[in-house]
């Protein structure tokens, strides 16, 4: 039966790679369902031969266990509210409030920084909920949207950074976020882990990563792909400064709807009325909108975006089929065997492992997280003893932030596509920034934060607190500094020669990967040169896989499709 796991894992990976590289061009849901069906057929045959018909009959029940209902229903209810907000004029109300904020001492820049970080502040179980609600609002900040506050370049950075922050905010969410899966496993040792042991490292890394994404979009993406964004610049003579004083008026029911939306979120997060599912709170909010703001049920339904919902469900089906047929056990055993390679060791293997979901970015992080976190757990004292509990917590922090941000760069219906659509960009315009920040900044930063702050025990007389804060600050400056330097350097040396740019970017990715892997190894094993080198090598391999998980050139057929008159 172990053989079966390798076969089904092979089916899944081959189908995903063929889709990523454009050889299979059907919606990702179809590919994932195809993978599920193939795995179940192969699994069914194996089981029939090995255990008989009864075992085959139970196979559907086993793979249905792979479906995680919570994020699907939470996303649907969140989109309901977003639809209600749109119909009742809630976005106009938000615009008006932002107008007041702009004229306050924090000014336009401060307002935008708060807006960009709103997803991680509110931390909903799926980043798409807030993104669906606020991306149309962000678009209005440009010339085409009406407000004319920002130029095209600024709007690209704003939308890209906001989407980055959204597609990762499911990690630190306390209401069924992805990070809670890892916190649950850590609860086996740390009694208060489920109170949110991973939240702070994730939130910190996400904020820092968002800033790096903004720089990447400004200095790399816009330089490399100047024609990829169809947004228009303001015409000559259009005075942005003058126009920014435009007063936005909103209907009173818009303010009420906004108040209901915010109150629902606060009740869902802080649970002042007792423990209750987030879905119930959000649906109650939607009903209140119908009653008070006089919106129709259809308005709520219009807010639903089906792609992420169905892609997520299809991903869970595929993961369930893999789990039922031993595919994930095979994956764990493959990763385990990497440890025996001397050049990699545990540090190198973990440097690859924490980047796994950015290497294979799927439409929802939960698809692989639900399977890989138990594998990671087994690397600790529970089975393989590669890591102590503290070390396991550090790896979990790095892994989870990388995983939760992987829906951003996913070309298979990932959340980043919402941002690309909003800024009228070609698919893939913002994904390079996302993969780079996840790999080079967020994963190592979360590990460092976990090591120096969350796992330290502070006494009033213990001076380590100050020392550890300084250490985190120093690492944040170093990690961000090095990567920002790479971004600036790249922006200076990129040229019109595409193949030269390819190598420049690849080298940049590999360097950043090495640094990320080395820092993870340092966070785990401190100053052990061998381990740090192993971690760096693992980081290079991960970066190469992330960087090259794309076709270097488009296929002839795709090029013809893109450039032909039938586009």
């Amino acid at each position, binding site marked *: 039966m172990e053989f079966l796991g390798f076969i089904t894992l092979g089916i899944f990976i081959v189908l995903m790679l063929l889709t990523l590289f454009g050889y299979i061009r059907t919606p990702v849901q*179809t590919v994932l369902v195809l993978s599920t069906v193939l795995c179940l057929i192969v699994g069914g045959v194996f089981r029939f031969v090995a255990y008989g018909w009864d075992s085959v009959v139970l196979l559907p029940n086993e793979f249905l*266990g792979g479906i995680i209902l919570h994020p699907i229903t939470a996303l649907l209810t969140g989109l309901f509210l977003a639809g209600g907000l749109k119909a009742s004029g809630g976005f106009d109300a938000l615009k008006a409030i932002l107008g007041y904020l702009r004229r306050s001492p924090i000014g336009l820049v401060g307002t935008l920084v708060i807006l960009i970080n709103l997803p991680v502040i509110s931390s909903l179980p799926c980043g798409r909920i807030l993104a669906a609600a606020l991306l149309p609002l962000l678009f209005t900040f440009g010339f085409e949207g009406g407000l004319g506050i920002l130029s095209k370049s600024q709007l690209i950075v704003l939308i890209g950074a906001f989407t980055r922050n959204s597609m990762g905010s499911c990690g630190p969410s306390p209401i069924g*976020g992805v990070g*809670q*899966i890892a916190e*649950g496993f850590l609860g086996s040792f740390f009694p208060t882990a*489920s109170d949110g042991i991973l939240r702070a490292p994730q939130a910190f890394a996400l904020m820092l990563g968002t800033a790096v994404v903004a720089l990447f979009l400004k200095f790399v993406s816009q330089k490399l792909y100047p024609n990829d964004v169809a947004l228009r610049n303001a015409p000559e003579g259009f005075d942005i400064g003058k126009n920014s004083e435009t007063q936005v008026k909103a209907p009173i029911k818009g303010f009420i709807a906004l108040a209901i939306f915010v109150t629902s979120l606060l009740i869902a997060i802080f649970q002042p009325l007792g423990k209750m599912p987030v879905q119930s709170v959000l649906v109650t909010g939607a009903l209140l909108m119908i009653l008070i703001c006089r919106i129709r049920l259809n308005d709520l339904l219009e807010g639903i975006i089906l792609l992420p919902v169905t892609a997520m469900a299809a991903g869970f089906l595929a993961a369930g089929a893999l789990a039922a047929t031993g595919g994930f056990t095979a994956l764990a055993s493959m990763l385990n065997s990497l440890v025996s390679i001397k050049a990699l060791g545990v540090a190198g293997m973990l440097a690859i492992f924490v980047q796994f979901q950015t290497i294979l970015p799927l439409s929802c992080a939960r698809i692989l997280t639900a399977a890989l976190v138990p594998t990671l757990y087994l690397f600790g004292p529970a089975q393989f003893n590669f890591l102590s509990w503290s070390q396991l917590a550090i790896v979990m922090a790095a892994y989870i932030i990388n995983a939760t941000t992987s829906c951003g760069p996913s070309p298979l219906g990932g959340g980043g596509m919402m941002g690309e659509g909003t800024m009228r960009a070609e698919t*893939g315009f913002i994904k*390079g920034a996302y993969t780079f920040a996840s790999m080079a900044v967020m994963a190592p930063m979360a590990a460092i934060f976990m090591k120096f702050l969350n796992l330290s025990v502070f006494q009033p007389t213990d001076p380590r607190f100050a020392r550890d804060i300084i250490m985190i600050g120093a690492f944040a400056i170093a990690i961000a500094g090095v990567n920002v330097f790479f971004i600036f350097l790249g922006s200076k040396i990129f040229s019109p020669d595409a193949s030269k740019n390819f190598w420049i970017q690849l080298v940049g990715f590999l360097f950043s990967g090495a640094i990320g892997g080395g820092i993870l190894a340092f966070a785990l094993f401190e100053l052990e040169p061998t381990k740090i080198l192993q971690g760096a090598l693992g980081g290079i391999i991960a970066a190469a896989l992330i960087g090259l998980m*794309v076709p270097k050139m488009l296929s002839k057929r795709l090029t013809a499709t893109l450039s032909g008159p039938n586009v």
Partner: protein
Amino acid sequence: MSESEKPSQIGKNRSDESQPLILPGIHRYQFFTNLKDRGWTLNLDRVALFGIVSALLATTVKPLLRGNPATIYCYECRACYATQDRCPVGISLQAELVVAGRALDYDRFIRNGGLKCVRCGNCQSFCVQYLPLPRMFEIMQQETRQAILAGIVPQESLIQGLQQGLIGKEFIDDVVKAIS
């Protein structure tokens, strides 16, 4: 070249060979599915979507019909794992039992010690939603007992459960009977 044969402005940009196409880490143009290119898979897409919706319906409706609706509300956040040694029979992965109850996965339920649960309720206090875990496990235990008696549960699961001490005393007789 006539007006209709001229490539559009967008097309011109896209075919501009001096512009770099795809660079490392940038999933540019990936998942470009022009509808006309996948016309032959339209029916496949429809079947797939039908499959997804059916699976979601089955996952939701089955627990309702079998009287175990609370399993639907589980966040699968695993906060219940913090029960640790407060579980008198040493069950460590309680969320697995909830999922098994929802999906009616007997093997998963037995493998994770569902049949040795004494329904003390210690794990319930760790649930972020305070779901009635003992009640959910009890319903699944009865479902599993019926399945064992009906001969649906594979012998391997039962034998392994017995060998690893995963069968509680109230179920031992039924399991032994089913194996013999």
